[in-house]
């Protein structure tokens, strides 16, 4: 069809975590520019299945940009060339006919490859489990206007809570650091009165778990913020630093 794309795909294939992977090259043709990147992979996979080959394994769930599953490192960037989107919201109109596209999994020792483009991100779950919750009794739901939360704080907390845990920050960071993720999860609670009670314990536990999982330190390059599909701000990392160091001196 007129205007459709013919592309060369260099995709990382890896059977499981214990064997080395390598790139395989595939040709796809007649790709509509209205397809999402995942639909393009679906087209390739349909063909691979028809030919009796193993389809490319990749994570996906909602396909509407909110679940954070579609972890693909496309042409040297998490979620491809566009800012503020996940792979499912990346459309083929962002590519040129005849282009070669390199697709890799997130690469970090804390995110081992399960298969092909699927990585194990349960390290994030363990960081949350270490302290990303409120366990004090906050009572019944109050009348909205009686909550002692300034609008600005509520907005900042909500902006931090927009993190979908996709791992693009880790993938983008030259140190495979999880600070943007961890700081967002610390901030969304530290900004609110219900979360303040356990703030210092939370900051210490979550940072300790983050280090334990084998994520790197922060070089403040800002790559994570630039590649975050939800626009999580570096201000959260500064807040985490404040929370952590004040906890160092004040926690019991």
């Amino acid at each position, binding site marked *: 069809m007129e205007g459709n794309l013919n592309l060369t795909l*260099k995709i*990382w294939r890896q059977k499981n975590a214990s064997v080395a992977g390598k*790139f395989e090259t595939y040709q796809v043709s007649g790709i509509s520019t209205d397809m999402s990147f995942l639909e393009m992979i679906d087209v390739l996979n349909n063909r691979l299945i028809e030919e009796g080959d193993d389809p490319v394994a990749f994570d996906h769930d909602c396909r509407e940009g909110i679940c954070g599953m579609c972890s693909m*490192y496309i*042409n*040297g*960037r998490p979620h491809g*060339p566009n800012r503020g989107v996940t792979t499912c919201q990346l459309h083929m109109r962002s590519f040129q006919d005849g282009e070669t596209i*390199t697709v*890799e999994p997130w*690469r*970090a*020792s*804390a995110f081992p490859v399960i298969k092909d483009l699927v990585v194990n991100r349960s390290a994030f779950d363990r960081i949350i489990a270490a302290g990303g919750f409120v366990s004090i009794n906050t009572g019944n739901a109050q009348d909205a206007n009686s909550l002692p939360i300034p609008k600005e704080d509520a907005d900042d907390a909500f902006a931090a809570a927009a993190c979908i845990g996709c791992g693009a920050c880790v993938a*983008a960071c*030259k*140190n*495979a*650091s999880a*600070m943007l993720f961890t700081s967002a999860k610390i901030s969304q609670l530290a900004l609110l009165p219900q979360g303040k009670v356990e703030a210092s314990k939370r900051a210490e536990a979550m*940072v*300790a778990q*983050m*280090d334990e999982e*084998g*994520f*790197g*330190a*922060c*070089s*403040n*390059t*800002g*790559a994570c913020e*630039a*590649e975050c599909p939800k626009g999580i701000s*570096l*201000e959260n*990392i*500064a*807040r*985490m*630093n*404040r929370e*952590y*160091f004040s906890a*160092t001196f004040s926690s019991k």
Partner: protein
Amino acid sequence: MSWLTKSLNSSLGKKLLMAITGLFLISFLLVHCSLNALIFLNDGGVAFNEGAEFMAHNPVIRTMEIVLFAGLLLHIVDGLRLWFENKSKRPVAYAKVDGAANSKWYSRSMGLLGTLLLLFLILHLKHFWYFSRLTDGLEDHTLFAEMQAVFMNPVVVVVYVLGCISLGYHLLHGFQSAFQSIGWNHPKYSPTIKTIGAIFSIVIPAAFAAMPIAFYFHLIH
């Protein structure tokens, strides 16, 4: 005190240490540059030599010299530690990385820039610190005369200018990054910190670079 060492050994703590030592080294650069800039008075090095004499004999300054070396060593050791640790966090490298799309090259190259600075610093310390503190060369001629002599070598001048360029880029990222690591990111202050950092990173290395150049081209007598 195990709570303190635990905190300082965390990924955040190591960055805090980089930031504090980095800011301390920045304060040293300001003093060093201001004093050296006395050569631009073009008074045959009279004011500069007086300044150098004061620095060499003032007990507070001599004590701070030890603190300075300790701070520098901490910055280097902590930096190398972070560099090696961070490198190990991605055992399989990406085949294709488009770093320019999301960050500045010098922010991703602090380890490299720091290593270049360290190599320059070894040469620089040999030229002037070793000369003035560990030899009796000063009995022979002044520090100003030594600068004149050292900067007659064009290779040395080029190495010094390259050292200053490395310093400029190292500071351009490091200055504002230090405040972020400390946790000082605030809409009221951060734009000012970034502006001051950018000015500092250009003015100080440029002033330093002008010194060997000025001597080499006999602009200072």
